[in-house]
């Protein structure tokens, strides 16, 4: 008796599984027509920062936070400006109060008085996501919630991010953080919503001095591409092999 019942159950279960399992469930990865597209894509967004032009007003940070709805009074920010003061004795002082949202108005650095006569050189360095060619933050996402577009911009899918923070740990530049409202990983999007409409990023528009520029690196006539090709530029922390696509004019060895 038991034997037959067991056999029956077995058949039922097997049948149920076979019918319940849609073919699509086994379709593990869908390569699609994807690969071909990257070669034909003629856009690769890149960034150019001229550290000589930056005066540390912080309008870029303000514009970024308001444009991209990053809570204004939170210390986290998608872009920020750093101040470096190198003294004649070689010592480096640096700070970025509130990411320089309100600009640099105090001569004190790291809450220290600095005698102007001791200063050898001082400058400001705007920072934002480098939209790396090999983004380590994307590599480590366990669920495919962050990704790189064909045009090089790295985005986060807020509806899929589980909030493990691995990408935050993996970025050598500290550009990622948890959004205070959505609690998902948050980062600079190069204002992709503006770029696709033919506009500049909010920070580029907000900069009065032209210290920030965004351009298409695949277009040899783009002014940004021209500068990168013809002038001496550097990237941040190249030793990590991330191939950053934000280029800096006048990058000092003290810049972190």
């Amino acid at each position, binding site marked *: 008796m038991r034997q037959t019942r067991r056999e029956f159950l077995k058949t039922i279960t097997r049948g149920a599984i076979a019918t319940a399992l849609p073919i699509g469930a086994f379709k593990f*990865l869908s390569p699609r027509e*994807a690969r071909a597209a990257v070669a034909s894509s003629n856009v690769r967004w890149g960034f150019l920062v001229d550290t000589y032009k930056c005066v540390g*007003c912080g*309008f870029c940070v303000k514009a970024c936070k308001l*444009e991209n709805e990053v809570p204004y009074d939170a210390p986290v920010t998608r872009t920020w400006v750093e101040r470096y003061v190198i003294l004649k004795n070689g010592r480096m002082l640096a700070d970025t109060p509130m990411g320089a949202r*309100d600009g640099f108005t105090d001569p004190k650095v790291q809450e220290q008085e600095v005698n102007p006569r001791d200063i050898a050189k001082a400058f400001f360095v705007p920072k934002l996501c480098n939209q790396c060619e090999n983004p380590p933050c994307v590599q480590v996402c366990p669920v*495919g919630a962050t990704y790189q577009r064909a045009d090089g911009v790295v985005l986060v899918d807020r509806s899929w991010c589980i909030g493990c923070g691995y990408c935050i740990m993996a970025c050598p530049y500290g550009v990622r953080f948890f959004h205070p409202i959505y609690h998902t990983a948050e980062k600079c999007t190069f204002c992709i919503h503006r770029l696709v409409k033919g506009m500049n990023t909010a920070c580029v528009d907000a900069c009065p001095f032209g210290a920030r520029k965004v351009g298409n690196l695949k277009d040899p006539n783009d002014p940004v591409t021209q500068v990168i090709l013809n002038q001496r530029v550097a990237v941040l922390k190249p030793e990590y092999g991330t191939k950053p696509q934000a280029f800096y004019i006048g990058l000092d060895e003290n810049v972190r």
Partner: protein
Amino acid sequence: MKSHVLRPLWVVLVVIGLILVARYFVVPPDFGIYERGFMYGFHRKSNEKEWEAFKVKYRTKTYCKDCHPDKYESNMSSKHHVIQCENCHGPAIDHPENPPKLTINRKRSLCIRCHAYLPYPTSQRAKIKGIDPKEHNPGMECVTCHNPHKPDMEGW
């Protein structure tokens, strides 16, 4: 299936089957590998469009100039022509529908972003006319004496 040894394997297969079924219903259909390959391009394609549809808030000077030609002209003829209207007045968004009024920010903190003097010889900052906010008429609004739209012409 004479031997009982493979029984747990069936249990395991059922569990895997359940996960696959759940996966079929939970994962969006456009989730897959796109342009940048599996390492960098594994995502839900429609998310790109969602980000592209994000609301633009900063509209730049071209948005302001038609309705406020006087302010625009006077500003464009001054040294402050490099500054966006929205840097001080806030993002236009869909002004005048939303918001109907933009802020008129008279705070000193706005001006000293550039005009607080910092003694940095190698930076452009030192070349901007600067003051020491603690010494220079503390407590007064800058606009009492300076016209922010056209600062070359002192006073109003």
